[in-house]
């Protein structure tokens, strides 16, 4: 700590390109991540629309697209998953919020490695371009699912996909490399660039969650980068890592994929929770209940996430004797999450609650995530997973975990930090309309899909008329599709609000929400290098409604009364 604080202050570069395109300023890079993730969310949302339309009205042409065949359908499903997890959730929650807030919240002037930060973003940008190009190459885009199980993904003869799958592997590998660099930056910055007085146990919870996510990502992604290379070598050089006819094993890919794939859920979930945890105390005017318990639970969840991966493989053909131990670890994850959720509820309890838009999204995210959490027990138990694995129950379950953290959490973050990002306030009325449309439509999409899953409806089915047992399920798909269209249209108030507020929004003061953490102790938007003078941290981050204080918030920079008294005596 400290070394970077005394380094020479850098002038902001003058040219447009150095300043806004190839910038090393973490705030500019964060906005680039934000724009990229929102642009990719359009692709993700459009693919959701195509999937849902096809499932509700399989015989009709899709408005704005045309007819869709089974091979196209598989490709669209693959793109939806890949785009949403790797190119929306991660850049949104880690790229945009992590980059913007970590230096501001710890009182640093920038990231520890600003040029590495620039490189992380442009690597991700390249990955997005490669993925987008892969959708238009001869042979079509990858169509083996976002999990790309071998041998389906391993040999073009099974799908007819040639370049599409190779480019998919390349895009995903580049994405991993990008967030590897980003994670190193997050961790180094937090460990080394904290302002004087900012001890680890005075860090805002979002910073804890971002760095835990970064560590989990760093430790889990290595095997999958190796796996991606092996898959590419199988395809291009004729090796047989995953091909049984050459002595390889398809299950090896599943192990490598899920060893990363499950921790990845927490890489996304923790920052989403972190955002909710920043918003809730501010709008409840109450300290976080059990701050340290939250931190230890976060770390415990991060550690446990490494020993649960085979719960994706209960019926994969792996030795069935493994299942029970993975079932136990999986279900145990509910304990740290129960602590986090109960503590969040205890934070709300007897607060002074203002249901402003950020708070609505944070509470809505918590309430919705609960469904994702409890349904995880059904699929975490190997026994019930025999029936539920690979059905719409799983689809509904993981959308109920990832959507609340990514979108409810992410939107809570945008409405809350928009003044800090752009120096203007967003419109509250449009924000509330956006919230209620999102809440109602989201639940109307996925509750019916739980019911479809309980009937045994397999996922990734292009059209289900050949099955008699799926006839009663068709109305569920109809409701889900109409609700999906509502959910997508429900994002229009947000788009309008976002654009309109950029130019016409009310000018924001430095600390519009009367919050305590350091990012509010500087201008909105913050100047180049963030702080006019380096803040000195004297307090915990969530001191709201302290008895005897003159107002109901005490910034982290405000000295303790004893210190004040000493200073006065001098």
């Amino acid at each position, binding site marked *: 700590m400290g070394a970077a604080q005394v380094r020479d202050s850098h002038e902001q570069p003058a040219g447009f390109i150095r300043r806004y395109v190839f910038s090393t300023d973490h705030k500019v890079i964060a906005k680039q991540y934000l724009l990229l993730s929102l642009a990719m969310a359009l692709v993700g949302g459009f693919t959701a629309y195509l999937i849902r339309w096809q499932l509700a009205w399989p015989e009709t042409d899709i408005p704005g697209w045309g007819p869709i065949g089974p091979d196209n359908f*598989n490709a669209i499903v693959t793109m939806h998953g890949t785009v949403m997890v790797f190119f929306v959730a991660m850049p949104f929650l880690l790229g945009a919020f992590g980059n913007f807030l970590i230096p501001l919240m710890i009182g640093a002037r920038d990231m520890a490695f600003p040029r590495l930060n620039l490189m992380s973003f442009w690597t991700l940008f390249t990955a997005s371009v490669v993925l987008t190009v892969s959708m238009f190459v001869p042979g079509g885009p990858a169509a083996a699912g976002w999990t790309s199980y071998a*041998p389906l993904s391993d040999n073009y003869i099974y799908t007819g996909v040639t370049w599409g799958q190779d480019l998919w592997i390349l895009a995903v590998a580049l994405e991993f490399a990008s967030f590897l660099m980003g994670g190193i930056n997050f961790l180094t910055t937090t460990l080394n660039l904290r302002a004087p007085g900012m001890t680890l146990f005075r860090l805002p919870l979002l910073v804890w969650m971002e760095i835990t996510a970064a560590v989990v990502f760093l430790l889990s992604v290595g095997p999958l980068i190796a796996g991606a290379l092996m898959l590419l070598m199988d395809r291009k050089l004729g090796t047989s890592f995953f091909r049984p006819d050459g002595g390889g094993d*398809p299950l090896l890919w599943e192990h490598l994929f899920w060893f990363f794939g499950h921790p990845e859920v927490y890489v996304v979930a923790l920052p989403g929770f972190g955002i909710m945890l920043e918003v809730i105390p501010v709008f409840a005017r109450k300290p976080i209940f059990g701050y340290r318990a939250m931190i230890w639970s976060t770390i415990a969840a991060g550690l446990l996430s490494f020993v649960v991966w085979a719960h994706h493989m209960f019926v994969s053909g792996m030795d069935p004797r493994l299942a029970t131990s993975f079932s136990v670890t999986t279900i145990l994850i509910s304990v740290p999450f129960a602590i986090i959720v109960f503590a969040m*509820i205890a934070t709300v309890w007897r607060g002074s609650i203002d249901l402003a838009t950020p708070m609505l999204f944070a509470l809505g995210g918590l309430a919705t995530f609960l469904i994702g959490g*409890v349904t995880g027990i059904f699929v975490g138990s190997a*026994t019930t997973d025999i029936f539920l694995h690979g059905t719409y129950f799983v689809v509904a379950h993981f959308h109920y975990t990832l959507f609340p953290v990514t979108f409810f959490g992410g939107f809570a973050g945008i409405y809350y930090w928009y003044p800090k990002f752009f120096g203007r306030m967003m419109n509250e009325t449009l924000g509330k309309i956006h919230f209620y449309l999102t809440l109602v439509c989201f639940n109307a999409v996925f509750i019916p899909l739980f019911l479809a899953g309980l*009937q045994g409806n397999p996922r990734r089915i292009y059209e289900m008329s*050949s099955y008699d047992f799926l006839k009663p399920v068709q109305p569920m798909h109809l409701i889900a599709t109409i609700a999906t269209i509502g959910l997508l249209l429900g994002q229009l108030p947000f788009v309008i609000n976002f654009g309109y507020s950029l130019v016409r929004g009310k000018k924001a003061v430095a600390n519009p929400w009367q919050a305590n953490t350091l990012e509010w102790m500087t201008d909105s938007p913050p100047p180049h290098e963030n702080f006019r003078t380096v803040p000195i941290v004297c307090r915990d981050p969530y001191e709201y409604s302290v008895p005897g204080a003159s107002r109901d918030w005490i910034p982290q920079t405000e000295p303790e009364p004893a210190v004040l008294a000493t200073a006065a005596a001098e």
Partner: protein
Amino acid sequence: MARRVRLWRTCLNNRGTAATVLDHLLPINVSTFGGDIDHVFWLIFWIVGLWFIAAECILLYSVMRHRRKAGAVAAFWRGDTPRQLAWVLIPAFVVLCLDLGIDYAGASVWERVKGNAPASNIVVRVTAKQFNWIFTYPGPDNKFGTADDVTSENDMHVPVGKVVHLELESPDVIHSFFVPNLRLKQDVVPGRTIRAWFEATKAGTYEIACSELCGFGHYSMQGNVIVQNQAAYAAWVRETWPRSTAASSSASSKN
């Protein structure tokens, strides 16, 4: 409004309505172990259902009850003393105990379904390929790979009340053999033979779906398990299997 009241009254008068809805949440079960799996499902359903409702109610009540009012001040609780933290840790401990209970209940059923299968002399080899189910019976000599093997496409005939062993194989990609009514699902992985078993309790035709993405024809990889009573099954064997008990015994004596 009157209509809404009437609707509520109908619901209240039909005391069995909720139970009927729950009865139809899962498809009808026709296997011997399916009831055990469903039992674990309902155990989890009631445990997490009650926790879920309690948590949502407390959250909702709290938000409504503690909306910002002029003059009202929020409580100052950091939740950092053991006494305060107990409000979170004790429920979390209860969650832990219930988790272990669910694990315990699940483990014995898992052992029954996926552990060692009960003995049986009925074996069917299931070959899942893009995009069909091929069922091979060993024929009268009870050996696979001999001339009297019987194959059938997409329809698997089995007797009711008998343990049936399956040997699952795939020549191309991963498929998953899924029969919702039997509560049976098992991935079929190229390069290995995976064993599964079931015992059907009720005659009828039950659909097989592929539940692992296997290519463009994945959606149409439909098949049927045709569960027949003893007489009908015996008749099917008589009609479709080669009637060569003598031929097969002479073939085996030659070897």
